[in-house]
């Protein structure tokens, strides 16, 4: 499954788009972290909550649940809500 990576996280992936596997959004993020260690904790906190300035989309639709099931052919987009000076 394709995952779009925002620029603040590309120091982990080295690319804007990477592959990860999983049947839920949470499993995809866990697989991303296995492939790119440290990435997940920057966007999901220790209580398994999405961090405040991170947004997750599946095929362009915003998702708020790490348990959201993913179907074959869907793709994940991670977006940073940049703000402040």
């Amino acid at each position: 499954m394709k995952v779009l990576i925002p620029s603040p996280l590309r120091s982990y992936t080295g690319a804007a788009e990477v592959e990860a596997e999983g049947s839920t959004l949470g499993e995809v993020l866990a697989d991303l972290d296995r492939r790119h260690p440290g990435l997940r904790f920057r966007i999901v906190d220790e209580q398994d909550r999405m961090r405040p300035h991170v947004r997750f989309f599946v095929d362009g639709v915003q998702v708020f649940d790490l348990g959201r099931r993913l179907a074959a052919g869907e793709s994940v987009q991670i977006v940073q809500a940049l703000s402040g000076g």
Partner: protein
Amino acid sequence: MVAPAPTVLVATRKGAWLLHADTTRRKWRLDGPHFLGHVIHHLVLDPRDRRTLLAAAKTGHLGPTIFRSTDRGRTWTEASRPPAFPKARRGEKGRVVDHTFWLTPGHPSEPGAWYAGTSPHGLFRSDDGGATWEPVPGLNDDPRYREWMGGAQDGTPDGPKLHSVIVDPRDPAHLYVGMSSGGVHESVDGGRSFRPLVRGMEVVEGFDVADVSFHDPHCVRICPARPDRLYQQNHCGIYRIDRPSEEWQRVGKAMPSSVGDIGFPMVVHPRDPDTAWVFPMDGTTVWPRTSPAGRPAAYVTRNAGRSWRRLDSGFPRRHAWWTVKRQAMAADGGKPVGLYVGTTGGELWASRSEGRSWSCVARHLPEIYAVETGAFAR
């Protein structure tokens, strides 16, 4: 003996810089930015190996982490398990580390040991040089401490801070920590348990001095030359304690009344326990937290707080409204001692003369959060 050339480690709201001096401390070379755009709350060189640098980092949108370098900052490795609270049980609201605020190297007899203080309040320990971190439950999970710590909405506008993690140079099991707010606390069993050390400290008028949660130490320092002595800059004055006494003395009452004894940083002399420096701020009305009257000055005591002397030679004489944060003033080990002050306006001021005169050695940096010194191994 000539002291080794110091490096000043500057942590800012938008990255970190290393300012390398020559042995005369007259010439400075600015190295950076490291982590441009990252919020760096603290950058510390391990005095035990003079090689390991730890940086407490986050960004406005990414979670907090720790980076480690052993090559003067040329390359950095991220902690594989940064400070984080345990996952809460179902139905309980778990705590989340917003940022690591403070880093303290462990005792010389415990190479690889480090402590971290976080916002909201949390104490963490690493035993592998900062690669993995574990919570210290003796503080974080003690029900009394949970009450004194309050929640994320308490404390300073940028979140409550656990700071001033101090390891007694004579005993790795003897620790002090400061909580802003939440008091000063001591452990004699390596962090398995803590108890308050707040007697003598004042609180904001009208509040109960017996309630530990109202105590707001801003910065606490132990004297390397006499570890039974600590100095403290508090929300309500400057204090000294000489252990085994349990009572802080408000030595800031000897400050000029026009300046007062409010501020954030506290710096001690590496060899003389009677000497300490503060950088007072305007703590009136809405707490502007600028230099009083826009005239920056450090103050020094040479007699353990019985009297204080103004040190402003070289600083702007008027209309200088910057602020010095609690971690943004430091001393080196030179003779005479070098002092360093980082401002919210992104300037680093240095004194080679224990504060008698000051000069600006770097400017146009982002807002400075922390200043530390160290001397890299050759």
